[in-house]
């Protein structure tokens, strides 16, 4: 990450990295939880009841938001690397805002669902 500190691009790169780290930590746990289905639906339901706890719900909300923002900030990285430089007017900046917007939209849609 060699960007001027505190620039929007720098924050986007940091956000991309931190969301990726969080997802990498979450992924094995996600797989282990789904693997409970091997022991039957009852085991998975037992886990899903745990997932009903408020704090767990907040964590899940955070994760889907992180996945959304990691996706769009990743598109920003691909745009920087694969499109002709400089990219079209404001494209990189728009992708930063799109990432934040995607995170909020998915967060609200998910939040309404689990509320």
């Amino acid at each position, binding site marked *: 990450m060699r960007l001027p500190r505190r620039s929007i691009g720098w924050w986007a790169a940091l956000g991309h990295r931190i969301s990726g780290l969080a997802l990498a930590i979450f992924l094995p746990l996600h797989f282990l939880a789904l693997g409970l289905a091997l022991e039957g639906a009852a085991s998975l339901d037992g886990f899903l009841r745990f997932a009903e706890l408020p704090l767990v719900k907040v964590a899940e909300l955070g994760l*889907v938001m992180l996945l959304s923002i990691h996706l769009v900030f990743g598109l920003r990285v691909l745009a920087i690397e694969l499109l002709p430089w400089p990219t079209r007017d404001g494209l990189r900046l728009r992708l930063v805002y799109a990432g934040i917007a995607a995170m909020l939209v998915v967060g609200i849609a998910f939040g309404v669902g689990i509320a």
Partner: protein
Amino acid sequence: MGELRLYALQRLTALVMIPLILVHLVLIVYAVQGGLTADAILARTRGSVAWALFYGLFVVAAAIHAPIGLRNVLREWTGLARRPIDRAMLAFGAILLALGLRAVAAVVGGGA
């Protein structure tokens, strides 16, 4: 494996995962409306070759993508030497692949 190949693999898996993540996010938001139950999840996935292929590909791509990204972070943000990082990330990728494919098998295939 050379740096260039790792870089290309990470970008390639990123491209592969773009549509997969979009579908996954839509499915998550749809599935949680009205609460999640194992029966509802398994009714959708059990015996479905399409979901097995979809999530199988997703797992393989993620198991390649995540360790390479994590490797970059560990190299830049920690003072750890390269070789232990590489070994740990190889193990992390193998664990993700094994657990992920097991999870796909669990929700698509067997179970009581």
